C-alpha cells in the first residue's frame, strides 16, 4: 500500500517534469533554440498561481502584502498564460542571439527570476516560500479516509497524466505540421527559411511562448500538489535535469522526452533504495548521486542518439561514419 503511494507521488513528479520536457523539446528538438530558462518559466507558473490562489499573509517570516485568494482554475490558467508571455518577452529581446549566446542569456533570465522571487518578499515571502497552497477539488477527497489517503494523490496523478497526454498530442501534431516544418528548418539553418519568405522571428516567438507556457502549466500543477513552494525549487539544476531528460529521450521526439523524464525521475527514486548495508555506507548519499551521474553518461554512451532519437538525422551531414 505504501509502495503504491510512493509510486503515485513519483508518477506525479515525473508527469510534471514531463510537461517541462515537452516544452523544452519544442524549443530544442524542434526549433533548435538553446533555452536555459526553463526553471524560470516553471517558477513563474508556480508563483503566479500561488499568489493568485492564496490570501496575503503576515507574520514575521511570511509577510506578503499581495495575495488574491482566487479559484484554482483561474490561477492555473493565468499561470500558463503569464509564463508564455514571459517566454515571449525573453524571446523578444534575445531571439536573434545564436546558440550558446542564447543559452547564457536565457539562463541569466531564469536566474534573475529566481533572485527576484528570493528577495521580493512582499510578493513571494522570499526564502521562506509560500505555504498552504490550496489543492484542486481537495474537498472531494477527505484526507482522513485512512487507507484511502492515496485517493487524492491518485486523482492528481490522473489529472497530471491527462495533461501530459493532451500536451503530447498538441505538440506532436504541431511538430508534424507545416508549422513544425518551418521550425525544423530554423533548427537546421535559419537563413534558408528566411530566404524562402518565412517570417522566422515570429515562428521562434511562437515556439518560445508555447514551450514556456507549458512549463508554466507544469509550475502551477507543482504548486498545487506540493502545498508549499520555495525559491530553491527553481535552481538552474532543474533546467539541467530537463535538458538531460530531453537529450536522453532523444532530441526531437516527444515520446522520447517523456521517456527521458521517466528515466531521470526514476533513477533518482530508484537509487534511494540502495541497500545501506554496503561498505562505505556512510558515503551512501554521495555514492547515490555519483551513480545518478554515471547512469546519465552510460545511457548516452549506449544510446548515443537517446532512447528514441533519430539516429539517422543525427548522423546526417557528418562526413565520417560515426561508428
Amino acid at each position: 500500500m505504501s509502495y503504491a503511494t510512493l509510486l503515485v507521488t513519483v508518477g506525479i513528479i515525473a508527469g510534471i517534469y514531463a510537461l517541462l520536457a515537452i516544452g523544452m523539446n519544442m524549443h530544442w528538438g524542434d526549433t533548435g533554440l538553446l533555452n536555459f530558462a526553463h526553471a524560470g518559466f516553471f517558477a513563474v507558473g508556480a508563483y503566479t498561481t500561488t499568489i493568485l490562489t492564496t490570501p496575503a499573509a503576515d507574520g514575521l517570516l511570511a509577510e506578503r502584502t499581495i495575495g488574491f485568494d482566487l479559484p484554482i482554475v483561474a490561477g492555473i490558467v493565468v499561470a500558463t498564460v503569464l509564463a508564455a508571455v514571459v517566454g515571449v518577452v525573453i524571446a523578444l529581446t534575445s531571439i536573434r542571439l545564436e546558440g550558446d549566446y542564447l543559452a547564457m542569456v536565457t539562463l541569466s533570465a531564469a536566474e534573475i527570476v529566481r533572485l527576484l522571487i528570493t528577495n521580493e518578499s512582499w510578493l513571494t515571502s522570499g526564502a521562506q516560500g509560500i505555504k498552504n497552497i490550496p489543492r484542486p477539488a481537495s474537498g472531494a477527497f477527505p484526507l482522513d479516509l485512512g487507507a484511502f489517503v492515496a485517493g487524492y494523490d491518485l486523482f492528481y496523478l490522473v489529472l497530471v497524466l491527462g495533461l501530459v497526454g493532451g500536451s503530447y498530442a498538441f505538440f506532436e501534431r504541431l511538430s508534424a505540421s507545416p508549422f513544425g516544418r518551418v521550425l525544423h528548418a530554423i533548427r537546421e539553418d535559419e537563413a534558408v527559411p528566411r530566404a524562402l519568405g518565412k517570417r522566422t522571428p515570429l515562428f521562434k516567438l511562437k515556439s518560445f511562448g508555447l514551450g514556456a507556457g507549458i512549463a508554466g502549466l507544469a509550475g502551477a500543477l507543482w504548486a498545487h500538489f506540493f502545498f508549499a513552494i520555495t525559491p530553491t525549487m527553481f535552481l538552474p539544476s532543474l533546467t539541467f535535469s530537463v535538458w538531460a531528460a530531453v537529450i536522453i529521450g532523444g532530441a526531437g521526439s516527444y515520446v522520447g522526452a517523456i521517456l527521458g523524464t521517466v528515466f531521470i525521475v526514476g533513477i533518482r527514486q530508484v537509487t534511494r533504495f540502495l541497500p545501506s548495508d554496503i561498505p562505505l555506507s556512510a558515503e551512501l548519499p554521495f555514492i547515490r548521486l555519483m551513480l545518478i551521474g554515471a547512469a546519465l553518461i552510460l545511457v548516452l554512451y549506449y544510446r548515443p542518439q537517446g532512447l528514441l532519437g533519430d539516429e539517422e538525422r543525427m548522423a546526417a551531414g557528418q562526413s565520417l561514419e560515426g561508428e
Partner: protein
Amino acid sequence: MAAITQFIWFGLVSGSLIALGALGLTLIFGILDFINIAYGEYMALGAFIAYGLNTSTELPIYAVAVVGLFATGPLAVAMDKLVFQHFRDRSSIVLLVVSIGLAFILRNLIRVIWGSGSKRFDVPIEAAPTYFGVQILADQVAIVALSLVALGVTFLLLRRTDIGVAMRAASDDTDLAQLRGVDTERLVTYVWLVGGIIAGLAGVMLGLDGQLRPTMGFLALIPIFAAVILGGIGDPVGAVVGGYAIGLLQEVSVIVIPTEYKPLVGLALLVVGLLVRPDGVFGEATR
C-alpha cells in the same frame, strides 16, 4: 561610506577570480565546442587536492597550490580519456549532458574523500593592511597578478604558436584538420591539459580568497560563463575583460543597490551587452 576605491579593489579581486575561471573555460569551450558543466568541479578538485596536501604535509600553501593546479591538468586529461573521448562525434548538447553527469560524479567524489562541509586552507585570517586608504591582502595581490599572467600565457599559446592555430582549426573542422596531418587527439589532450591547469589555478585561488566547498566550482560557474559569453566564446582576452567587467560592476554596484542583487548586476550586464553586440561584447569572437 567606505571609499569607492575599496569597492573597486574588491571588484578587481573578484573580477580576477572570474577571469581566471573564464580563461580556462573559454579555451575548452572555444576549441572543444561544448559547455562543460564539470569545469566547476575541476576547479574544486584543484582546490581540494591542494587542501589535502596542505593539511597532511607541512608544506606552505604556495607550494601545495602549485601541486594542486598541476594535478588538475592531468586529471582533466584523464576525464577526457575516460569519458569525453567516447563522445567525440556527438553533438555539443549531448556532451553538455554528459558533463552534467560527470559533474555529479566529481562533486560527490569530493564529498566522499573530504566530507561535505566547508574547509579552509591553513592560512591565518588577519586584518588587511591599508595602503592608500584601501585594504589590501597579499593573497589578493597574488590573485590579480596570477590571472594576468595566465591570460598572457594563454593568449600567446593560442595566437602565436602553431599548436594554437591547430587547436582552433580542429575546432572548426576536425576532418579537415586530420587531412592536414594534425593528430587531433593529441591536440585535444593539450587543450584539456592547459584548461585543466587553469581550472586548478582558479580553484586554488578561489579557495584562498574564500573557503573550500564541494560545490564551490559549480556555484562560481554562472558568472564565469557570463564572462566567457560576454567576451565572445573562445576569445581569451574577451573572457578576461568580461570577467573583470562583471566583477567590478558587481562589487561597485553595492554602493547603490542591496547586496542581494549583486549577482543580478553581472547578468544584466550580460543581457544588455549581448543585445547590443550579439557575438560577444569584448574582443573579436572567433566563431
